[in-house]
């Protein structure tokens, strides 16, 4: 009970702040508004995160995802400044005596063209004042500069060099944020949910850097407009397409090649982008006589059309696929597909709206020829959302909106592929659910120094009928066997069939979000944040790395929604005229209803997952430090994370002590230390260099603590879950980019990127497995190291 009381505190605080609001609103009357769009002069792309402010005042705004801004101030003469990192600053004199529209194009500052730019949460001037914290934003140019394995630019790997973000070792899918699991990240590509972020089992991400405009990772302090995952939101936005000229960009690498075409269309009322990427390593393998092959491809599409100055349509799509073939006896293919139709509507100079209709699907197919069967599973969703932003006054801005997502889960079907197949046809119960939400969020400047962002999200989840649900004696799908001391599945005693019109279970949650920023002086501020989030769908995975086969499942009778509470406190400071910046944060996060899997759980093809799981909780806390050098020929950053991530799982209704005797144990994504140093050096117009140094505590694993003889083999015994660790991981990478002489009049621009990944050729253990030597019978430990030293060359071009 104690815990519950504490939870509602933030709501009370929120109500208090809302009352405060009335007083500010009264001031808003005699103001005038400037609104408009900010775009890139070269390609017409709308710019997200441009800072617009009135010089000499604290009045300012940031462009939204669609490049729109709105700024209100009392009547008078001002100097209006547009500032965006990597772009030339534009200032203009304005006389504010009426509402006006100013659309502006800003130009990249050529001297900074190739600088490493991990922009701050927002451009410098606003960084300290805006309450937003725990956000990592990466400019796609920065991402392209970092040394990467095999020369494949990878946005997700780049994020992992920032504090609080890790992966589960090389060759593992997804990423972990602040000790959270892969399925706790909401990954959006143009607002569509991406269920699997990796190609080739984690070697590459599904995001084609040529098609991506920007990305933002919310590690905490998630704005109220996002919901549905408890750990983070990765918001990736595709380019709109060059609206000025037709342009081709592309690259030829060791593993894959890319080509993107973009240009104006609809009589300059719109533009398009088509980008494709495909791997060809499988062809080389075939040539080398290798019978197994693996390949991937993806396609990004985007187009937009301006109906008039207040209405714009966007259509975007993504399709990606991985294909594995194991000498004809085993084949597998999987991928995401998504589409989004959006309508931007500007009601007036203060009210901006966007309506989105989104479809997204992930499916997995597996064919096993030896046993003549196919396995198919999928998750699909249809999402409608309507978001509005009201620029009430300089001191007060309001975001609000609604969203609803219809999910369809097909956890798996088995189909025999021939008359001789020994396998019987099987369809696991299909599941359906509806997740709806409404939110309101205010950005409120309380004083010149204190800014608050507070909001609330109400979410509702309806696990819809249309399937049977198993019933168990005493509601116990599994039970602790007291004599043998383990969790044992029980057999259903019957089942209840729910009609399609019925609900199996419904859940709803209020999710308050709060952030405060207090500016101490011109160069430093402290921020604090609290957020609560609910997660209604879960990825079932009992392996140390998630696999493409893992299926998603909705909350229902046996799996409750995960609920997280995160508290964060940060100190931010700029040094030496903003040449350096320091960001430090501490956080504490708890997640309720985090399931874990009993010893010996079997998830594949299982229709009654409830017999394999126990309900628990997790917690994570840590310190993150990011020190950056932002300007000059040498740029880069040092990032350090000290953290702990653990979980605890009691027996609950099943009885018994729970997993690991009910004690806390490390989650597989616990990393005590995580240090990375990234640097970029611009030597001259032709040559630039980059380097990464990465050090990480090894991943928690379970090692054997003894052996015994059974069936003529040596069987390992194991004790506490995740109590041991792989050896520490470290790596040094370097890269060099060469831009040959370019005549300014030439349209063709090429560059060579040379990279060496893991220069020291260190064999970092991705895993250590234990077993008997086939010849001697002696037990041995076998290390798998994924990448030794990997040199690469990539040629990129623009036309």
């Amino acid at each position: 009970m104690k815990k519950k009381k504490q939870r509602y505190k933030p709501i009370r605080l929120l109500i208090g702040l809302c009352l405060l609001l009335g007083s500010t609103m009264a001031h808003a009357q005699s103001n005038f508004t400037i609104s408009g769009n900010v775009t890139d002069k070269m390609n017409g792309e709308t710019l997200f995160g441009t800072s617009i402010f009135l010089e000499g005042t604290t009045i300012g705004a940031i462009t939204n995802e669609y490049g729109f801004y709105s700024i209100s101030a009392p009547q008078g003469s001002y100097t209006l400044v547009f500032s965006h990192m990597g772009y030339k600053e534009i200032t203009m004199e304005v006389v504010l005596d009426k509402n006006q529209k100013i659309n502006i194009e800003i130009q990249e500052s050529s001297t900074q063209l190739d600088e490493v730019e991990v922009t701050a949460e927002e451009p410098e001037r606003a960084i300290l004042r805006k309450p937003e914290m725990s956000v990592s934003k990466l400019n796609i140019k920065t991402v392209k500069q970092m040394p990467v394995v095999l020369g494949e630019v990878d946005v997700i790997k780049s994020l992992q060099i920032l504090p609080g973000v890790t992966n589960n070792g090389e060759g593992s899918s997804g990423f972990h944020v602040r000790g959270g699991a892969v399925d706790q990240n909401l990954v959006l590509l143009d607002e569509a949910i991406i269920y699997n972020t990796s190609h080739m089992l984690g070697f590459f991400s599904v995001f084609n850097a040529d098609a991506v405009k920007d990305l933002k990772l919310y590690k905490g302090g998630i704005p109220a407009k996002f919901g549905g995952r408890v750990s983070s939101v990765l918001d990736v936005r595709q380019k709109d397409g060059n609206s000025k000229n037709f342009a081709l960009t592309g690259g030829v690498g060791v593993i894959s090649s890319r080509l993107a075409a973009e240009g104006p269309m609809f009589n300059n009322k719109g533009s398009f982008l088509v980008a494709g990427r495909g791997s060809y390593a499988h062809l080389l393998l075939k040539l080398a006589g290798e019978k197994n092959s693996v390949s991937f491809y993806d396609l990004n599409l985007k187009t937009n059309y301006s109906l008039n100055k207040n209405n714009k349509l966007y259509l975007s799509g993504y399709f990606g696929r991985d294909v594995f073939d194991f000498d004809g006896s085993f084949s597998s293919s999987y991928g995401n597909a998504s589409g989004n139709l959006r309508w931007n509507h500007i009601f007036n100079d203060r009210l901006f709206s966007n309506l989105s209709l989104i479809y997204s699907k992930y499916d997995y197919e597996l064919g096993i020829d030896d046993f003549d069967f196919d396995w198919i599973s999928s998750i699909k969703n249809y999402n409608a959302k309507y978001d509005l932003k009201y620029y009430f006054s300089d001191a007060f801005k309001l975001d609000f909106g609604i969203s609803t997502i219809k999910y369809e889960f097909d956890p798996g079907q088995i189909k025999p592929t021939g008359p001789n197949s020994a396998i019987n046809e099987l369809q696991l119960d299909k599941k359906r659910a509806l997740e709806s939400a409404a939110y309101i969020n205010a950005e409120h400047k309380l004083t010149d120094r204190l800014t608050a962002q507070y909001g609330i999200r109400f979410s509702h989840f309806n696990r819809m009928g249309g399937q049977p649900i198993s019933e168990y004696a005493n509601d116990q799908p599994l039970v602790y066997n007291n004599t043998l001391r383990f969790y044992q599945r029980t057999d259903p005693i019957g089942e209840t069939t729910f009609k399609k019109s019925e609900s199996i279970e419904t859940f709803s949650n209020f999710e308050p979000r709060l952030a405060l920023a207090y500016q101490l002086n011109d160069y430093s501020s402290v921020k604090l944040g609290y957020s609560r989030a609910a997660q209604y769908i879960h990825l079932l995975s009992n392996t140390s790395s998630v696999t493409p086969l893992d299926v998603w499942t909705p909350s229902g009778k046996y799996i409750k929604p995960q609920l997280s509470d995160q508290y964060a406190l940060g100190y931010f400071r700029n040094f030496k005229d903003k040449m350096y910046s320091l960001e430090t944060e501490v956080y504490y996060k708890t997640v309720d209803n985090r399931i874990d899997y009993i010893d010996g759980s079997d998830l594949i093809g299982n229709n009654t997952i409830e017999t394999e799981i126990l309900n628990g909780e997790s917690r994570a806390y840590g310190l993150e430090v990011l020190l950056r050098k932002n300007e000059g020929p040498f740029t880069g950053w040092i990032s350090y994370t000290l953290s702990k991530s653990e979980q605890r799982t009691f027996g609950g209704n099943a009885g018994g002590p729970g997993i690991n005797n009910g004690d806390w144990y490390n989650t597989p994504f616990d990393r005590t230390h995580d240090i990375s140093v990234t640097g970029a050096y611009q030597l001259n117009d032709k040559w630039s260099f980059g380097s990464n140094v990465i050090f990480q505590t090894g991943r928690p694993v379970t090692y054997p603590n003894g052996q015994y003889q059974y069936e003529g083999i040596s069987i390992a015994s194991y004790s506490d879950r995740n109590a041991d660790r792989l050896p520490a991981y470290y790596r040094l990478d370097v890269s060099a980019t060469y831009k040959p002489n370019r005549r300014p009049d030439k349209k063709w621009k090429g560059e060579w990127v040379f990279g060496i990944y893991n220069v020291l050729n260190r064999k970092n253990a991705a895993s250590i497995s234990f077993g008997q030597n086939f010849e001697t019978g002696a037990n041995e430990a076998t290390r798998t190291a994924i990448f030794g030293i990997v040199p690469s060359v990539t040629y990129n071009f623009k036309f």
Partner: protein
Amino acid sequence: MKLYHKILFIFLLLISASCTDVVDVDVPEGPIRLTIEASLDWEKGTTGNEQTILLSTSTPFFDNQQNNGATGATVRVTNTNDNTEFVFEDQNNGRYTTSSFIPVIGDTYSLEVIYENERYTATETLFPVTDISSITQSKDQGEDDEVLEVNVSFVDPVDEENYYFLRFQGRIDLLPELFYIKDEFINGNEADFYYEKIEDEEDNIVEFKPGDIVDIVFLSASEDYYNYLQLLIEQFEGAGDPFSPTPVALVGNCINEDNPDNVPYGYFRVTEMVKSSYTFE
């Protein structure tokens, strides 16, 4: 689905051209425990009177000593349907034998072991096993189409849930190939399992060639024993690789009545068995 994880792992290695090597690792040392390998297997067509129970103690993981048989125990099996008792004689090398065991299908047996003043017990029911319908050799089954494999087929009875344990062992090999089988997806069908050795220079594994002999053992299993075997085999084959579940302690069906914390390893099984061998041509 162990095959699936294995294959993912092979792809992982393939994509990355990664390397594996044997390394020295410090592993924790757990308590020494008694291991009870009480496998009363009744070969079809025999009386099943001759039976052996193996007792040994566990050792640190990297220890190579094989002389860890547990001696001085008293071992007894009782048919709980008719209370017939079978005493197993200590052979002073960890083997305990009897030549008077009477197997009866459907009867339940209980085991009692007293070792170092602690009493261990277990019970299990004797299940029948279906016959092997054919044993053949081929090249085109299996992972590699140019390599010999042996195929074992059997027809699963349609009426009940069945669990099986299938064991292949090349006569000159040190290690067996083990299968746990459940009829969930194959109920009532003729199912076919193969054993193929893929050459591996590092591990000194060579392919089967004509003249090689493979011993085959096919047993029925209880559902609990199937669950035990599944975990045992999966962990034996792939514990620690990134697509395997976190390895965990195996829980058998033997209970330490006097000191419940000192859980024994191993299992007490009573089953019907089909035994065969195949010589490659």
